[in-house]
């Protein structure tokens, strides 16, 4: 892996101006003459570097600025402030040499041509990216095998299921072997089996081609399964940038203690060990201080009729939720 960052983002901001309008006919007429305008800071002074071959998770709640950041990185949006350098290109200039080296999969946006089979879109991309016949065939065969879509590529795009279409979107976005891949919620709306397949594909692709990948997703499983590094953004601001494991330790100093009992135990007895997060007849989950976990577990074993005890980290999803609720 090269030490020079492939992606450098410095003080990136992207603001949008939006118009506010009250409901109703009267305000519709008024808005013809006067529309209150306000500025939304979708991305606000964000900086980070990403090295070649890294697979980085980029997460945040709805409207956090994830997609806007990716759009700035891919050259779709003009940054209000700040600098972006990708493979030494300024994305906004949309130079052909730059565009040849990036791929963008948008989970909620179709890039395949709707009225023709995906294989026709692939052929069109072959011409646009000027891929020679041999390289195209090798690449297409690899992607078709990896995503298992031999039969689907000859069916009209509009007739494909969401999962089939998403796999074809991957082929269209990667047929030209991009060095940088932006994946914007690629598993959204897919069933669990399909999500797993897409995750496996992304992992293998990253390993095999050493592509630098930025992945945004609302599914923590995607991020947990694929990324070592996480960037969290909220309300346009960078909240965290680092290892997933460090996030758990750094942002929460708690662990979950799950206890199974021989006989019913009262709530009062359990609450003295920590914050009770789940309470059933013969089972309870308690949030305890990370440092005191072993002491508390030993004490609980001594005082309560326990048949089973389990200590685990707080799921990433819950950690993130806590972060955003702070």
């Amino acid at each position: 892996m090269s030490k020079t960052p492939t992606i450098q983002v410095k003080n990136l901001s992207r603001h949008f101006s939006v118009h506010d309008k009250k409901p109703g006919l009267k305000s519709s007429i008024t808005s013809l003459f006067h529309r209150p305008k306000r500025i939304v800071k979708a991305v606000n002074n964000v900086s980070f570097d990403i090295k070649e071959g890294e697979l980085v998770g980029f997460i945040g709640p709805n409207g956090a600025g994830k997609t806007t950041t990716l759009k700035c990185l891919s050259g779709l949006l003009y940054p209000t402030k700040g600098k972006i350098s990708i493979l030494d290109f300024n994305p906004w200039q949309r130079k052909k040499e730059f565009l040849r080296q990036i791929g963008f999969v948008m989970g909620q946006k179709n890039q395949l041509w709707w009225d023709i089979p995906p294989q026709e879109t692939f052929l069109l991309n072959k011409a646009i990216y000027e891929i020679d016949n041999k390289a195209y065939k090798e690449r297409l065969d690899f992607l078709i095998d990896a995503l298992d879509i031999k039969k689907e590529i000859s069916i009209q795009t509009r007739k494909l299921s969401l999962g089939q279409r998403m796999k074809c979107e991957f082929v269209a976005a990667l047929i030209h072997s991009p060095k940088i891949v932006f994946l914007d919620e690629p598993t959204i709306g897919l069933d669990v089996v399909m999500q797993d397949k897409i995750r496996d594909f992304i992992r293998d692709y990253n390993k095999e081609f050493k592509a630098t990948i930025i992945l945004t997703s609302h599914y923590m499983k995607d991020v947990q399964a694929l990324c070592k590094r996480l960037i969290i953004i909220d309300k346009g601001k960078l909240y965290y940038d680092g290892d997933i494991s460090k996030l758990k330790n750094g942002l929460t100093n708690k662990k979950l203690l799950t206890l199974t009992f021989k006989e019913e135990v009262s709530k009062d007895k359990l609450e003295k060990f920590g914050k009770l997060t789940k309470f059933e007849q013969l089972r309870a989950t308690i949030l305890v201080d990370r440092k005191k976990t072993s002491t508390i577990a030993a004490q609980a074993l001594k005082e309560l009729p326990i048949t089973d005890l389990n200590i685990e980290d707080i799921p990433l999803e819950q950690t993130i939720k806590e972060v955003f609720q702070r």
Partner: protein
Amino acid sequence: MLVSFFILFYFWAAVSETNQGVGSYTRPQLYAYFIVGYVIRTLVFSTRTGDIGGAITSGDLSKHLLRPLSVLKFFFTRDLVDKLFNIFFMIFEFAFILFILKPQMILPSPKNLFYFLSLLVLAIVIFFFYSLVVSLATFWTDQAWSHRWLFGVVLVNIFSGQAIPLDLLPTPIFNILKFTPFPYLYYYPVKFWIDDSLNASFLPLFIQSLLILLVLFFLSRFFWKKGLIKYQGYGN
């Protein structure tokens, strides 16, 4: 388009019935004005540039911007391919019109045919850039169709001469229109088919057409560059 053609044709046929013509136009000239005009309407005014406005508001423009190709050249090529399809269908429609109406047609001399074709090609390119500029205004208006309807359809239909030969309008209005792209889209090309009295002014008109094309070309580039800065890539 065939229906609107027949409405216009029969309207002007009725108007010209009493005096066997209108203004300086004889009946065969009027027939030719609208029948040849049908070819012009098919070739010049069929454009897919309206899709650009829709792509801006829906965010679909992003898929074009991500590819290493000139988006405007892509749309221009698509327009030309569309016109090729239109030519195929137009042959049948044109044969149908001639079969139904069996009009007395004026055929141009080879020289006038050359003038007609030259201005027709220019009209196709002028309308592409005119329509492009109207579509690119969507970057600022946030919705695609109202200004397109006004500038891309209504004004073009009235002032290009599709409905009424422009020299039948009051002279001051006609003189003002000469400084707009509209007469160069329909009126002048068809005029060179039906009337050789204009032949001496072909070169100045051709140069004027080129100038209008140049203005629209640079205007579209300017709108494109400035518009991309405004582009918000809606819809995720």
